[in-house]
């Protein structure tokens, strides 16, 4: 088993009715539950605020950030365990964010044998 992060982007600003939001959440809960039941969920992870600061360069210039379009901002992440990248990608296809115009970026966590 290897570890991966899922980075969730977008899918926040689709206008939705309260009922649709509730159904969305139920889908997320079901998805995580299945990942957990199959031993693929290492950590739920955390949501991230969309606004923050970016500190850059030698001069440590501070700007409001990350300045990307809403759809490009990482809204949260989770830690996943899967056989390989292909498997992790396959599992990500169940993520409800895909139904509302968002994306999941699947990134292997580097394996370092010291």
């Amino acid at each position, binding site marked *: 088993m290897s570890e991966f992060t899922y980075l*969730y982007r977008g899918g*926040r*600003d689709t*206008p*939705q*009715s*309260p*009922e*649709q*939001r*509730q159904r*969305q*959440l*139920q889908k*997320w*809960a079901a998805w*995580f539950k299945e990942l957990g039941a199959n031993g693929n969920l290492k950590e*739920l*992870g*955390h*949501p991230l605020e969309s606004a923050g600061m970016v500190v850059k360069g030698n001069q440590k210039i501070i700007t409001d950030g990350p300045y990307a379009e809403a759809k490009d901002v990482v*809204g*949260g992440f*989770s830690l996943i365990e899967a056989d390989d990248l292909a498997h992790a990608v396959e599992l990500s296809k169940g993520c*409800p*964010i895909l139904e509302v115009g968002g994306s999941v970026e699947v990134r292997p966590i580097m394996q370092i044998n010291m």
Partner: protein
Amino acid sequence: MEPGDHLFRHESGRMIAALTRIFGVHNLALAEDVVQDAFCRALEVWRIRGIPENPSAWLMATAKNAALDVLRRQRTARAFAPELGRFLESEWTLAPVVEELFSTGVIKDDLLRMMFSCCHPQLQKAAQVPLILHILCGFSVGEVASAFVSTHAATEKRITRAKKVLARSKRLFDTAAPADFSARLPAVHRALYLLFNEGYHGASSETAVRAELCREGMRLTAMLLEHPFGSTPATYALAALMALDAARLPARVDSSGNLISLLEQDRAQWDQQLVAEGLKFLELSATGCELTEYHVEAAIASVHACALRTEDTDWKAIVSLYDTLMRIRPSPVVALNRAIAVAQKEGPERGLDEIRSITARDRLASYPFYSAALGEIELRRGRPETAREHFRAARAFGAQLDGAPVPRRARHRVRCRRSEASVLRAISGPGTRFFQNVLGSRRLNHASSPPCGLGGLCRRPA
């Protein structure tokens, strides 16, 4: 945790009601924005961390903090609720006042204020129910449109216009003034009745949508019953009518989605808990001296609820209840339903006579259940060919209503389940015997109650 059914929807109504009370009705749009933001935030956090133990409290706290934020930032630039003005201006009173306004008891009252405000006389009748669904029940414009089988654009226009009227009304309805309360109450009853009926008979062919509208009607009526001025005999009668009708929902549709006639329903499927509740409400409604159409309709529903088998139905009682209904709220549709009951009691020929003598019968031409009723009666008179004509006409309406073509096979069926069923539901009335028991009881003979319109119903001792 698993949030209850439609929790978000109901929280949306509560938050908008509370925020509008604080911001003032002219800032309705601001209240709606704050609620949207609260939901956005909840979704962002909860989708990853899971839904908290008490999502309502979480949402309310988020809305409350957002409200405080808005009030602090905009209090110089924007006028908020005039009656709260002074309290919102001072930092000393701001937080405690907002805290108080977000307490459960106050929010309950805010919901009623909003319900009554949505029935403002300046609002078009046709806009009131969509507005209630949108503001108090958390239906999006799209969801309201689909419930009424209307277009998104038309619904949006109607709701937007209604919101503007509401925003211009300056102040939310004051539920603490007894005279205003009783003056507005009939309009509120009417709106809740229409909301429920839209679910029960409405144009949407989706069973789930219909059941939901019925549930919302019942939920708001229950809210009204909790208020000291709201728990009037008429409100109890309305609650009784809804419970007794809703009791039949499980038996009303067959596996392929066709409505089943009241007479053909499997009565074992009726929700006995709702029947009991409805009968209890009906009993509570039998006080005072006001006889409303809700009393009579609930009584009709109770006659049906009390008949264990279709053939046990007391048609005589039903006809006499329809006579009463014709006196207090005459309409061609009521007359038609009365005629159907007469046909059950005295045979199809008599029923047909009654139909022929309906005043303003031409107004029924566009009522699909009219043709269905004629078809049913002709069938019973042993004239299947004429019956077929009528059913065909009824089905054409049904197809229009559903927006779906009539399946070829169904076209050849003599019977028209859907339409026929709905006609018969109207006569699905209440246990007359029961009603007479109740109405004949000493409750009516309070010294303070003058002899009243209920008298006509009490003539036959039980």
